[in-house]
């Protein structure tokens, strides 16, 4: 409906149940996007794209179900809403989550299996320069905080980046993008730009 009202793009949402959503909003605003925080189904209905931030996936899952956001978001993902998830957001986009807490669910959409806290506790959190062929030079400086890893990549998903040891930490599938790390904590916004370009392309085609 927003598409009929104007040929422009609706606002871009950042899921704001918990986590570093303000940092994502700041990045998207720097592109000139109209950014809104999303905690309710009525807010989700307005957006042309959504970022799921870093945070605690078990908490984001619980609150999204409690406040009726999970089902409409799953439907929106199925209908092609562009979504970018970082860290906990990647977990929420995975079809299958390992080492979840009892009863934990995800929104799904990405044909992958993700393991929570795959590197261990905070002492193992790290930063590293990553080669991401799709983004070209320079390398992406990636910050991993108690980060998840993509352990299996299904046929529909493709790998955007892996660590030197082969562990997959960035994936893409249609309008869905997920990274184990946090570009919003650095000054390199190429992943956000890639997501935002998808938002623009999708909005103008619909």
């Amino acid at each position, binding site marked *: 409906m927003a598409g009929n009202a104007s040929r422009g793009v609706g606002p871009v949402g950042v899921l704001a149940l918990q986590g570093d959503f303000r940092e994502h909003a700041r990045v998207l605003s720097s592109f000139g996007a109209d950014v809104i925080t999303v905690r309710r189904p009525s807010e989700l209905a307005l957006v042309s794209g959504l970022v799921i931030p870093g945070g605690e996936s078990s908490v984001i899952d619980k609150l999204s179900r409690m406040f009726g956001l999970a089902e409409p978001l799953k439907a929106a993902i199925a209908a092609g809403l562009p979504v970018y998830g970082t860290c906990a957001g990647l977990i929420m986009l995975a079809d299958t989550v390992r080492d979840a807490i009892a009863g934990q669910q995800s929104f799904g959409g990405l044909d992958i299996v993700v393991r929570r806290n795959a590197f261990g506790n905070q002492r193992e959190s790290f*930063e590293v320069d990553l080669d991401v062929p799709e983004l070209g030079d320079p390398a992406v400086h990636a910050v991993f905080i108690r980060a998840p890893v993509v352990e299996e990549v299904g046929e529909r998903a493709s790998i955007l980046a892996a660590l030197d040891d082969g562990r997959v930490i960035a994936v893409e599938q249609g309008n869905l993008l997920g990274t184990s790390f946090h570009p919003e904590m650095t000054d390199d916004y190429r992943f956000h730009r890639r997501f935002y370009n998808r938002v623009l392309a999708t909005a103008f085609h619909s």
Partner: protein
Amino acid sequence: MTDSSTSSSVGSNRVKRGLAEMLKGGVIMDVVNADQARIAEDAGAVAVMALERVPADIRSQGGVARMSDPDLIEGIQKAVSIPVMAKARIGHFVEAQILQALDVDYIDESEVLSPADYVNHIDKWNYTVPFVCGATNLGEALRRINEGAAMIRSKGEAGTGDVSEATKHIRKILGEIRALSAMAPDELYVAAKELQAPYDVVAEIAQTGKLPVVLFTAGGVATPADAAMMMQLGADGVFVGSGVFKSGDPAARAAAIVKATTFYDDPKVIAEASRGLGEAMVGINVSDLPAPHRLSERGW
């Protein structure tokens, strides 16, 4: 600096401060055993703080309060997958070494325990594990950050269920930041002197209008309304100590405080969350506490 794609670093400032960034908008709950930790995780806690006695019990039982038994901490680590924090005494760098060896996710150098050093705090730069420290005002927060703290919590008065000190401290810290933002550049030198804090970080805050680390609030939060008020005052998140497990229905109260923290600006949600929680912790008025029993006066 290195340009090798194979080099990676752990324990950097960004990584240490980063975990606190991910806890924002969340509730960190004190737990004394694995069962409580599971209840907290189920209720939507973003992390748990492992300790031997909650502040209300430390207060009523008295005696020296120390770091928890490693068995207890490990039991809690095994029970949950959310981050586990644990407390060391102010200045007790060996307790901190032990907590790092136990692989806790955050160390709280805490005034709730009995101080081990009345002069020096722990040199927190020496650790890979990040630290959170309490503060009652901006100068204290900046001194802790200068010592390497990667997260600050306003102190409040732990174990009372009286939120008035938490209110006072978060207002004080944020008010002093606002005052810095309004100053002329040449006034910042004296401001740094008065805050007893390094000029560089004072100048940075004057420019950005915020602390360089995440700021939670703590000490006396007992109801969903308390938590939402702290968020409306500008806290990034909330610690709840005795308020959950000293209440009539811990699981329900914990979940309600989580909801109120996320929807802190929506009175309808907070009202809904506040219904039927049973008894809140009994509580002590801070004004009835003789000065030597005020934990927030520990640390400087």
